[in-house]
């Protein structure tokens, strides 16, 4: 542009691309939830609430506005404790099923649950929208449209390889629906639930016997995809891949040492990260002992992120050969893509949607804080500069989706 001579593109135009690829859908998800919340909460009196959600909320404790603060706190804490216990149990069940290789069952269960989310919750939210905007539609065509919508959604998410945009769109739709339902919970219950989910995530990921950690380690050691709702920001361009792999090879061999002088105080540099990887692999009871070798070097980084709820384990896997597992498409497999569990989408969107009940400025501040935890925090920028094509599998929080 301003430079007169034809210059090669600077690194500015490529750096951080993948973070943007995650930030955009997260932002979209949050925006849709906020719009839904504002559109539906302003008009509808409290008579119009989702029946499904209120039934979920009423399982352990139903908050009523007349209760005292202490009662609400107690009830909310009890409710979230029950919720976390159920989720932990379900995750262990999931782990067992996965351990005994009931993958077909798992897949069909996940497909079924996402079908339920898309059809029932989607239909309920759509009904609210239809009645709010006075849109005229008869029951038959409405149900046909909803059925088609959900079937295509389940197909695209789990069963068939579709254009990546469709899959991503449906994943965002699922996240929006679930998050919208969670914002319908009473106030104190929502907050208690959010806090306890964050704590649960920390425990499940960081503890050595945490269910999510076990699950992901197992999946990594078997080199299988978890049948889970994971958003993939997958770059589609093929010819870049080969060069990326060359980078990886080079970086693995010698560049790690060269980069150690760049690390800042607050952030572990690459050497300490690799050290942690070694420790982690030793600690993990030699689960992936066979795979540490040449064929499948795996790295696990445990990153203490600034945002408290984002303290997830970043998993980086490299598939040098044999990357074509059937779950992934041809030519798209093993390009370095950031994956983010759908639970994070829901978590953030619930936070923002809850804030939208008060004030837009709160939403805005909340959004910025979340994005700061997710994206341009120094950790991430540093990571991007260390691993240009990082392959992090953010830990999967399917349990939230299922429950």
């Amino acid at each position: 542009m301003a430079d007169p001579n034809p210059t090669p593109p600077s690194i500015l135009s490529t750096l951080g691309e993948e973070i943007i690829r995650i930030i955009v859908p997260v932002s979209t998800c949050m925006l849709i939830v906020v719009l839904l919340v504002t559109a539906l909460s302003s008009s509808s009196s409290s008579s119009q609430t989702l029946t499904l959600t209120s039934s979920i909320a009423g399982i352990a404790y139903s908050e009523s506005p007349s209760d005292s603060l202490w009662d609400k706190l107690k009830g909310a804490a009890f409710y979230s404790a029950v919720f976390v216990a159920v989720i932990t149990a379900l995750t262990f069940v999931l782990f067992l099923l996965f351990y005994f290789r009931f993958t077909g069952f798992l897949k069909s269960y996940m497909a079924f649950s996402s079908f339920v989310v898309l059809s029932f919750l989607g239909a309920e939210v759509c009904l609210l929208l239809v009645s709010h905007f006075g849109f005229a539609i008869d029951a038959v065509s409405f149900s046909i449209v909803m059925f088609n919508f959900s079937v295509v959604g389940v197909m695209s998410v789990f069963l068939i390889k579709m254009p990546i945009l469709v899959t991503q769109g449906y994943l965002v739709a699922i996240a929006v629906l679930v998050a919208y339902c969670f914002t319908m919970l009473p106030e104190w219950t929502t907050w208690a639930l959010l806090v306890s989910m964050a704590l649960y995530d920390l425990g499940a990921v960081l503890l050595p016997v945490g269910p999510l950690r076990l699950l992901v380690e197992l999946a990594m050691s078997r080199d299988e995809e978890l049948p889970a709702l994971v958003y993939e920001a997958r770059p589609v361009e093929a010819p870049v891949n080969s060069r990326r792999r060359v980078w990886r090879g080079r970086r693995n061999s010698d560049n790690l040492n060269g980069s150690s002088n760049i690390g800042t105080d607050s952030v572990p540099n690459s050497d300490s990260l690799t050290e942690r990887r070694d420790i982690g692999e030793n600690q993990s009871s030699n689960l992936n002992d066979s795979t540490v070798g040449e064929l499948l070097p795996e790295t696990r980084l445990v990153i203490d992120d600034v945002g408290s709820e984002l303290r997830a384990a970043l998993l980086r896997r490299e598939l040098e050969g044999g990357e074509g597992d059937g779950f992934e498409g041809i030519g798209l497999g093993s390009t370095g893509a950031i994956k983010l569990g759908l639970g994070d989408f829901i978590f953030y969107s619930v936070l923002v949607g809850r804030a939208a009940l008060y004030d837009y400025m709160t939403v805005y501040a909340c959004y910025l804080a979340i994005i700061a935890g997710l994206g341009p925090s120094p950790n991430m920028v540093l990571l991007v500069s260390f691993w240009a094509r990082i392959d992090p599998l953010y830990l999967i929080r399917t349990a939230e989706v299922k429950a």
Partner: protein
Amino acid sequence: MTVAAGVGYALISLGPALSIFVSVVSTKPFLVLTLLSGTLFWLISLIVLSAAWRAFLPFPSSAWWQYVILILTSVAFQEGIRLVFWKLYKRLEDMLDAFADRVSKPRLYWTDKMQIALAGGLGHGVAHAVFFCLSLLTPAFGPATYYVNRCSHIPLFLVSAIISLGFVMIHTFSMVIAFNGYAEGRKADQFIIPVIHTISAITTLINLAPGGCVVGVPLLCIVMAVTLQYCWKIVWRRLTENRNREIVS
């Protein structure tokens, strides 16, 4: 204020920022990240300042000098934030350069550095506009508009939109000036930024006088124009320098 008017006011205050975003920032992912962190920095400064001043508010309407103190401390704090931002950016720039060497790509051009500064400043400006203009607009949709006694000719929303337009531009381009001044070590550039910021903040006080918005708002626009002109001078100087250098070499 109807929806059309609301959108119009929002576009008055954020339209130039939007075009900068679409044409420059959104094409490069890293600049988007810089923009976001710029907004975050400004937000943090706002939160800290408002927490500190919470105890003294609201002022009695007669005492205008308290507003001067408030504005001066705020400007000083935000300039401090700018320094912190610069320090962080400097560190990041080293990292980026090292990274560019490693992947054997060219290092950052001076235009890249200027674009980073632009994106950071735009983040400051957008955050300002969101909190001081959009926060007025969003709750006020409806079939009426609002005038203030002291400024009975122009709707309040229009005044706030123009003021926030001024501040978006001033924030954006003063960041470019400042970063360039820090990088080149030019004392004049480093000095003029707080001055511009203070002057533009003080001019908003004129709006407190009855009928003052007729004077204050154009004055702010003049300050904005001066900032733009100054920034353009710097960019033009660097452009010609680089061109000469290339001709020589």
